[in-house]
């Protein structure tokens, strides 16, 4: 029995979320290739340099918000219903949140794409960070707000499913996948409040002309209050796959359920009070609060390092179940020719590198060197662009047969795809990191200036450009292969195949009974998380608004 046979309604909503996610990935990925070729000067025929920023905004919004969050909604809907073994309680609520998210994302996307068509009066060339006082069309902000409220309702839907289950099972431990979904959503409610306040109370009325000025530093601070936690909103679904699906794909079972819970609680506690580390070089924020944010950021390394241990230990256990032996030669027994496994494992490997470049970003003093340089995109293309994106794609290879009832098609393309992504990302990301060290800025159509020369520590600037261009192109080819496989699988069958994968997930080696009950006390952890945020943000935010909510103010400046 496939998931789709047990939960036909839920499987449909999972498919729809995945379809939107992967279509956004396709369009956003195409934009990514256009940028890689344009900014390196290899080919500038797609758009003008002025329109580059429309493409860049589309790339950021479609990939960092639309793709990741729709994929999350698909994975989490599957995880909650599967692990609680019950459907979402009300299809009406489910269709409501999906509809709100879809309409919101579509409105924002159309507003952005309007920038490419001169006859259309709206645009939103404000990048994914939409810093005031650069102003987008009000529809852009309204679309984002609708999208975010949709995600809140989605979380409510999963909480409701849990409460129903809890009514029937008062004494049981929360199943691991549901535990991960609930802690992730609690983190999201707390952190997305920042961007909701920014958009609803400041940017939307300001873009409509209802208020004359906004404080650029205050709105920027509210953005980054959400802007780093959103990173964990992409990453935690990848962890969710690495903890619950990857051990099975390796041929074994999860090493430790209690540690997985500890990790998710740590993310809930520490994800939000770190935002100032994006503002280390901003004026107007006292040094002490930057230091507090840095300490929290560094401690966020802990859950990721624990994850590295548990996930690798689980993979090793799987490999030994398959006959692996020796200190390292067990690695050879892992199913490297299975696209779902290979994708997750390669994503995890690259995430380790991305984690280390993230430590550099987090360090207050060395951040001076890399802030807003190409180093930063080099870093997050390993985190969101590989840890999340490649994991979601790999999970798709395993999940799509179960949610459609069709066998995976074009298997050989699927087998090659994760490796192609890996090679493309290795070229692009290593060159971006090094270019950043040379001082080459991010977010620019033409980083070639008459009065500025950049000197690479290792290798030359032209060689870095070529690597970025080739890497970006390989990534887009890998993306096309993926889209052919999943949409071929979905549309190319009638749902009656005998599928080859099974959806069961084996119990962990060390189960929830080994963890203290307090871990499941979500109210306690939410309260602690809020206290930490008040400590990190209370004083600097009150200082920022002490001279008035809208002062020092800036009127909107059209782009």
């Amino acid at each position: 029995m496939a998931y789709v046979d047990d939960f036909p309604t839920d499987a449909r909503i999972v498919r729809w979320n995945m379809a939107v996610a992967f279509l956004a990935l396709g369009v956003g990925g195409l934009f990514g290739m256009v940028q890689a070729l344009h900014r390196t000067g290899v080919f500038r025929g797609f758009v003008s340099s002025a329109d580059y920023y429309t493409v860049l905004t589309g790339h950021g919004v479609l990939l960092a918000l639309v793709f990741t969050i729709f994929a999350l909604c698909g994975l989490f809907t599957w995880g909650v219903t599967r692990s609680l073994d019950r459907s979402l309680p009300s299809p009406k609520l489910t269709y409501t949140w999906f509809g709100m998210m879809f309409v919101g994302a579509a409105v924002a996307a159309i507003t952005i794409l309007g920038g490419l068509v001169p006859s259309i009066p709206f645009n939103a060339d404000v990048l994914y960070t939409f810093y005031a006082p650069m102003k987008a069309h009000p529809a852009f902000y309204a679309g984002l707000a609708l999208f975010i409220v949709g995600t809140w309702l989605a979380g409510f839907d999963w909480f409701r499913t849990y409460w129903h289950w809890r009514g029937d099972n008062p004494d049981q431990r929360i199943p691991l996948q549901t535990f991960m979904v609930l802690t992730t959503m609690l983190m999201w409610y707390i952190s997305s409040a920042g961007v909701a306040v920014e958009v609803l109370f400041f940017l939307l009325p300001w873009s409509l002309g209802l208020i004359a000025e906004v404080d650029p530093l205050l709105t920027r601070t509210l953005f980054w209050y959400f802007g780093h936690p959103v990173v964990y909103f992409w990453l935690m679904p990848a962890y969710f796959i690495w903890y619950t699906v990857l051990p099975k794909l390796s041929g074994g079972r999860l090493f430790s359920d209690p540690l997985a819970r500890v990790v998710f609680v740590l993310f809930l506690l520490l994800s939000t009070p770190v935002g100032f580390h994006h503002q280390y070089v901003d004026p107007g924020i006292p040094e002490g609060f930057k230091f507090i944010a840095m300490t929290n950021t560094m401690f966020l390394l802990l859950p990721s390092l624990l994850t590295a241990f548990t996930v690798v230990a689980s993979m090793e256990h799987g490999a030994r179940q398959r006959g692996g032996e020796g200190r390292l030669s067990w690695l050879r027994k892992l199913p490297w020719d299975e696209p779902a496994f290979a994708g997750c494992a390669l994503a995890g490997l690259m995430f380790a590198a991305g984690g280390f470049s993230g430590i550099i970003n987090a360090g207050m003093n060395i951040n001076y060197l890399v802030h807003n340089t190409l180093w930063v995109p080099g870093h997050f293309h390993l985190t969101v662009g590989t840890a999340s994106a490649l994991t979601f794609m790999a999970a798709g290879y395993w999940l799509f047969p179960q949610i459609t009832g069709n066998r995976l098609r074009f298997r050989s393309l699927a087998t090659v795809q994760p490796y192609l992504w890996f090679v493309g990302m290795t070229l692009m990301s290593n060159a971006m990191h090094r270019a950043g060290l040379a001082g080459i800025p991010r977010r620019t159509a033409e980083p070639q200036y008459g009065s500025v020369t950049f000197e690479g520590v290792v290798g030359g600037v032209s060689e870095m450009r070529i690597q970025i261009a080739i890497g970006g192109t390989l990534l887009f080819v890998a993306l096309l292969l993926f889209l052919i496989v999943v949409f071929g699988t979905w549309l190319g069958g009638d749902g009656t195949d005998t599928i080859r994968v099974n959806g069961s997930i084996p119990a962990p080696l060390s189960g929830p009974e080994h963890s203290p009950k307090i871990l499941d006390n979500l109210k306690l952890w939410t309260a602690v998380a809020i206290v930490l945020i008040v400590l990190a943000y209370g004083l600097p935010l009150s200082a920022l608004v002490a001279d008035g909510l809208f002062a020092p103010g800036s009127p909107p400046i059209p782009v």
Partner: protein
Amino acid sequence: MEIHRYEKLWTVAALLLIVGLIATVTYGAVGPGVTMVSDSGGTVDADSLGDTEFGDPGVTQVGENEYEVHVVARQFLFQPGTAEPIRVPANSEVTFYITAADVVHGFEVAGTNVNVMAIPGQVAEVTVRFDDPAEYGIVCHEYCGSGHHTMAGQLVVVPEDEYDTEGS
């Protein structure tokens, strides 16, 4: 809670790494004296920069070997920096005060640690020593509009004797 022995070792090692990383930054602050951009620059009214010390931006000598540079970033130039280079003598301590007149900009002296955000209404203050004569490029590294990629400038550190003769 049952924790495997290797898990315990790993956790301790991870915590030591984290504390060590924080310690290196703390050492940077109290030892070599690396300071962060802070709120020390204060705020200004971005709509009327003419009435402030940014009304006539440029280089001012404030002590022996000590200079202040006021820079206004606006779409799509640095003032000074773009039309004419910022000139300071070698062997000097230079404090930059940077603000933005319209949208958020960046001010990065490529190849150095001078790298701050220019935010309307806020003044970024950063101090740096220039020991030897050199030429540096300045780039805006925050997207500031459709001409963002044209926004660049230069900082020239000239030999001390040359600066004195030109200044007199």
